[in-house]
């Protein structure tokens, strides 16, 4: 375990070294993600100037939800971006075999091999939104609050990564897993706003099947004093279960790959 931590540090270090050359790319990548979010946020802001509240939620409360999901998303974006492209880039070209010939876990190698700086744009947006939200809200500031937020963001990130992993395993069968990943990933867009505005089916989907709800809605509700019962603390459990399932599925996919050579 210690060794893998060191190794991850080494991977990261090497990538940062090559990024000095790609400063322009970094700025553009980060700005592009910021731009996408800005369009949505601008819409929300314009609208909130003209209405008393949004289904019972105020502007800062909306920012809290949006900020939490963006932060969770950014963790996946920064650290697990290589999972998206495993089929197109690694399996199709045969480069994946290289991972199987190295004395380290292939999944670790795959993930460690790429840190996506675009994700930093999302991270910054998330931090700013969270800051703006907390500034505009009147939360009782106890030491529990920042810890809870940290836990929520980490579990949210875990959920994003787990779903990313589960969908990317399909590339062992269909080569290009990106459509599958997109079909699941885009469901997180629902969770950018309070789940209460959607019909029951959607809320169920985002709580039990594709549980992005635990990355934003439930933690935000808890922080704002709404009663969500046990859902307030289920995030980490959901993340752990999904990650475990994802890893088992990955191993299953790897066995298939070694059996059929793709």
């Amino acid at each position: 375990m210690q060794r893998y931590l060191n190794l991850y540090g080494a991977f990261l270090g090497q990538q940062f070294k090559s990024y000095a050359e790609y400063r322009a790319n970094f700025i553009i990548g980060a700005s592009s993600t910021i731009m996408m979010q800005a369009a949505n946020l601008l819409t929300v802001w314009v609208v909130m100037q003209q209405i008393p509240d949004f289904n019972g939620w105020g502007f800062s409360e909306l920012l809290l939800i949006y900020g939490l999901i963006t932060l969770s998303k950014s963790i996946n974006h920064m650290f697990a971006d290589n999972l998206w492209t495993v089929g197109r880039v690694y399996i199709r070209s045969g480069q994946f075999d290289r991972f199987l010939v190295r004395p380290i876990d292939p999944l670790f190698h795959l993930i460690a091999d790429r840190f996506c700086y675009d994700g930093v744009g999302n991270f910054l947006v998330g931090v700013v939104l969270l800051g703006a939200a907390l500034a505009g809200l009147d939360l009782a500031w106890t030491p529990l609050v920042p810890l809870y937020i940290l836990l929520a963001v980490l579990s949210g990130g875990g959920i994003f990564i787990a779903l990313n992993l589960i969908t990317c395993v399909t590339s062992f069968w269909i080569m290009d897993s990106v459509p599958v990943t997109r079909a699941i990933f885009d469901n997180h867009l629902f969770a950018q706003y309070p789940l209460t505005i959607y019909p029951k089916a959607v809320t169920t989907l985002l709580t039990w099947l594709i549980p992005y709800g635990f990355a934003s809605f439930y933690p935000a509700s808890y922080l704002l004093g709404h009663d969500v019962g046990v859902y307030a603390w289920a995030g980490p459990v959901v993340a752990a279960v999904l990650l475990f399932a994802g890893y088992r599925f990955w191993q299953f996919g790897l066995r298939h790959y070694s059996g059929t050579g793709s």
Partner: protein
Amino acid sequence: MSIDSVPSPSQFAPPTAGAVSYNEISRSRREAQTAAPAPAGSLMPAIEVENLRKVFYISKKDPGLAGAVKALFRPRFDEKVAVDGISLRVEPGEMVGYIGVNGAGKSTTIKMLTGVLVPTGGTVRVLGRDPHRDRVANARDVGVVFGQRSQMWWDLALVESLNLIAKIYEIPAARYRELLDEFAATLELNELLSVPIRNMSLGQKMRAELAATLIHEPKVVYLDEPTIGLDLIVKERIRDFIKEQNRTRGTTVILTTHDLGDIEELCQRVIIIDAGHIIFDGPISTIKDRFGKYREITFEVAAGAARLELPAGADVIAAEPRTLALRFDRTQTTASQVAAAVMSQVDVRDFSLAEPDLSAIVKQIYNGALQEEAAA
């Protein structure tokens, strides 16, 4: 960095002070070392393959959406036997060429040897281990060059890639520095250490690739098309380097390539696979003696002759207005007999006798010379 002050390569290596203690080597590596099979030079073969079989199941599917849906509910499969019960043994320190036409089962075999693919039947043992089941332990002792697919990181300076590889393979710092200096010298990498792979020429890339593959001192190395696309001079250097490594370190080398020049230079033994079977496994000299019975002799003529009287065992293989190419069986007739026969019937300006060429011989083997021989 100025030209006249190129630092020694080990200055790029991460600065870890002091000798590497036993505890620094992770437990898995220690286990691999203690569980390692006998070192080179012992009686155990480096590679042992027994009745290896690989069958692929290709799904048969009608085109279009209807076909796709049908395939989902009632899948039909075609069986394709890529490797059909091959057996071979490679001793430590051997350099073996593994050749065959595309689709013969070469890469499938290599994939099973490297542990990437699971066999359908039979056994594979590399250094006494099952390369798939003991993947990690096997990976430490094995190096692979996948032709043009570099194992290094595209944007990293070469030395940074090597540093990362050293970390992955847990090469002790002092040993890594020694090896780095050695490879930088023998492969002339000093100027290239700070260059990222994407900026290197093909020849430079291959030299770098070899360093990356051998720096963890693997006992067995699989080289897939190591000299493809390279010019002659660079090819020579690469071949010399591989020969040297095999000589000094006793590295077992399995070479798969279409470049028979590589094979001739490097390998004492050749294995030929065709349609999933091994059709030849022996020294190169045997090939030449056994199959090199045909020689070609080409005449430059003033005018063609309608019908030629030729000694037994000689045939015309090409007749053009100005050239006449003949093939003759060395066991039945001689070059001088053939030449005399032709020159007595046709006005010959010039002629040349071709050396038995490994590629021509191999072509014949692909075309069934083995069957001919068996029938003869």
